[in-house]
């Protein structure tokens, strides 16, 4: 892994060397270099730039850390369970607010699963398959990530309807989301992890999106609990 990284670093440094590289404030004076742009009026060679784009995309794909792979694989299983739970909402939920929330969670996490699967496949890593219903098969099918529901808890949710489903759904989805946030924190606490922009961005987005959603679900749950007099 370290050898691979070192090679990639050398590759990157080479590509950067044709332009100005700024030193730190305490370093040597900056000497930004005029770039290799064509002279005024001359069209840039778009074919060559496109080839460079592809080469960079390929090399960026080779830059990753084992913790990134574990994160992506685990998060697919984690997201899949959120979809499984959310797809029960149209038939079981007692309120439109929960149906809307569930639709949004399904939409968001399906897109992220597709992104994570693509990330893994482009790096020749096995990617868990997720059925449209949110069932995981293949690699990662039996991963149990933090915040995920047990089979028993899932069965309880599936068997519920109306207000019971709504409150169970929220009460389960909040710790489920918190689990995803914990996974992001664990990733960031790993030496060398999340250096690639895609992983960093995805993980940061999951963190902020799900934190916002946790707060929103908390408010919904409070409102729901307040709905019956004691």
């Amino acid at each position, binding site marked *: 892994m370290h050898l691979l990284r070192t090679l990639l670093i050398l590759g990157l*440094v080479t590509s*950067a060397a*044709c*332009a*100005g*590289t*700024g*030193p*730190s404030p305490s*370093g040597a*004076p900056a000497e*930004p270099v*005029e*770039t*290799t742009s064509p002279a*005024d*009026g001359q069209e840039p060679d*778009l074919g060559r*730039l*496109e080839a*460079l*784009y*592809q080469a*960079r995309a390929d090399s960026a794909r080779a830059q990753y850390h084992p913790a990134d792979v574990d994160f992506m694989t685990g998060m697919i299983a984690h997201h899949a369970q959120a979809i499984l739970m959310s797809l029960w909402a149209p038939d079981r939920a007692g*309120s439109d607010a929960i149906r809307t*929330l569930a639709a949004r969670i399904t*939409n968001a996490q399906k*897109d*992220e699963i*597709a*992104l994570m699967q*693509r990330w893994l496949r482009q790096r020749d890593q096995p990617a868990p398959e997720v059925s449209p219903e949110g069932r995981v098969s293949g690699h990662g099918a039996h991963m149990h990530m933090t915040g995920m529901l047990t089979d028993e808890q899932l069965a309880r949710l599936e068997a519920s309807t109306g207000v019971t489903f709504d409150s169970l759904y929220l009460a389960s989805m909040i710790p489920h989301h918190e689990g995803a946030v914990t996974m992001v924190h664990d990733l*960031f*606490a790993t*030496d*060398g992890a*999340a*250096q690639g*922009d895609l992983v*960093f*961005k*995805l993980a*940061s*987005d999951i963190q*902020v*999106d799900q*934190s*916002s*959603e*946790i*707060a*929103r679900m*908390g*408010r919904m749950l*409070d*409102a729901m*609990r*307040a*709905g019956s*007099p004691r």
Partner: protein
Amino acid sequence: MRPTSRPSPSARRLGTGALALAGALAVAGCAASSSMGGVDLPSVAPSTDGPAPLRIDAPSPDPREGLGAGLFDAEEAAWNVRVVSRTPPEEPFVGQTNSDLAFKDHYVFQGNYDGVQIWDITDPTTPRSVVTYVCPASQSDVSVYGDLLFVSGEGLSGRLDCGAEGVDQQISDERLRGIRIFDISDIDSPEYVANVQTCRGSHTHTVLKDPNDDENVYIYVSGSAPVRPSEELPGCVGALPSDDPNSALFRIEVIRVPLANPEAAEIVSSPRIFDDLVAPPEHGPAPADLEAVERAREEGAFVLEIGGDPTVLPDRYVEPLLQQFVERRGGTGAPTAQDSAALRSYLPQLAEQMGGGPTADMGPTQCHDITVYPDVGLAGGACEGYGLLLDISDPVNPRRLDAVSDSNFSYWHSATFDNAGTKVLFSDEWGGGGGPKCRESDPMEWGADAIFTIEDGDRMEFQSYFKIPAAQTPQENCVAHNGSLIPIPGRDIMVQSWYQGGLSIFDWTDPANPVEIAFHDRGPVNAEQMESGGAWSAYWYDGYIYSSEIARGLDVIELLPSEALSENEIEAARSVQLDLLNSQGQPRFEWPHTFALARAYVDQLERSRTASQAWVDGVRSTLDEAEAMSGGARRDLVQTLAMQVEVQADAAGDPAKMRLLADALAGLAAM
């Protein structure tokens, strides 16, 4: 920040004098038509009641759908705009994300995850690369002020020495997460002069120039990534404020940068603008929703006031609640009027419970972006699940005035004020910008803009949503993103980027009915799979729209006239010349007094049918006549026209627009 062209003090004096005179004449000028000093205008009174809403026939089918893919050769669709130039990234930045833009004089500063690109835009048809400065850090959000360039670093791989090798250790003294400061007094050789490290890095930042402080600028830092360990940056605490009062959560950072000594830049405050944030569970209801609630109330529904907003108690709660009141009084069977009354008196208590609770008090921990509008002393904070209105009259201690949330909004991303500072538009970056959120199946209220009016200077009231109407493919990341106002006088028009949804230009003068009037879009980068691309930022600067294309470089685009926008309005917009623009530090536009400005207002009176056609024709021919004159003759004619417009103002369907026209004419006469 500062328009170079302002009306001179003498212009203002003369203008006011002309208007005062007109006011005196107005007493006599009760008739809608008017004649004086050789100008004979017909009646201005429109034949229709009320202004006509803005209408434009959009092309159908929408040409943005079904565009062919490609990196540099994707198909394009343009409506009421023309692409002036398409400039691919310089080699070092090919294949790396282009991000935000800032402007100074004839330079564009384009952030890139690997550094900063500086373009010379003296000739917008051929932007010329000045420097491609390699210094990796995401997202490289850029701002400029005076001779200083500020760049955000948030990712874990940003290095103090600008190296590209990343930072292998979780705790490292080589990592930069925060703000980099460059001296650009020699634009060809930016000098990296200082850093300010922050606990959550800097996802975006906002430069605030306090009108009362010429020695410093302030930077509001927004960072959304997790808090870095205190072993790396002492004092950084990731625990909740309830567990540790020094928590880096629930606050923004304010950096003060002494302009003469940027090396001394430091964090001067960490305002907890989210403290005690208990916003209503939704943004305020739209007027139509309020009407529905009123109807329901009249029909006997149980209505609660939650966070100041009336809400109908859903039926699914009503029945069990009534049943419980039946049980409570020891009764059986169907609820009676007595139970219904008991529930009604219980409603305030219920509302209180619904608004409170321990989790409801947990607001956002950070902002994504803050737009400051120093001229009106306000800022719009787009902060996770909330949109905040802040008072920034004390830049070091911003104070929250109001907060809104919205069940349709996933992630509040950025804010744009109208020029008057009476409206604010927030965008929702649902999915973080990497997702395809403009597919046919994605709701129009999700990943959209939400438009609010600002009431009494301190309260936001929801009006409507806006989202591009063209469905995009699953291979195109698309959601509301960065934009800016276009200085069309008398109207609120902005250009906004939608990643691979392209850029859209829309009118939100009527905040309840935004109307798209122009767009540009490309097909996906890749037809087979999602590859990140599209417009990150699209801003108007000195006559053109500059769009930072994530994968394709820099696009320069010009507006074309249409039924919804006249050549005169575009020319008036072009007359506003700035020498500095950071879109998150909103400038107030002021228009030089030109014939184009006057004609722009006349065009608007005609389009909205708030003045009679005969009157519009009469004013136009008088303006043509005046423009062909020179010296005192021109001045006298324009001044007379100004007075007549003022006299007739109240007879028109839009007196306020008439007064803008009169003011523009008076200013023109004084030039």
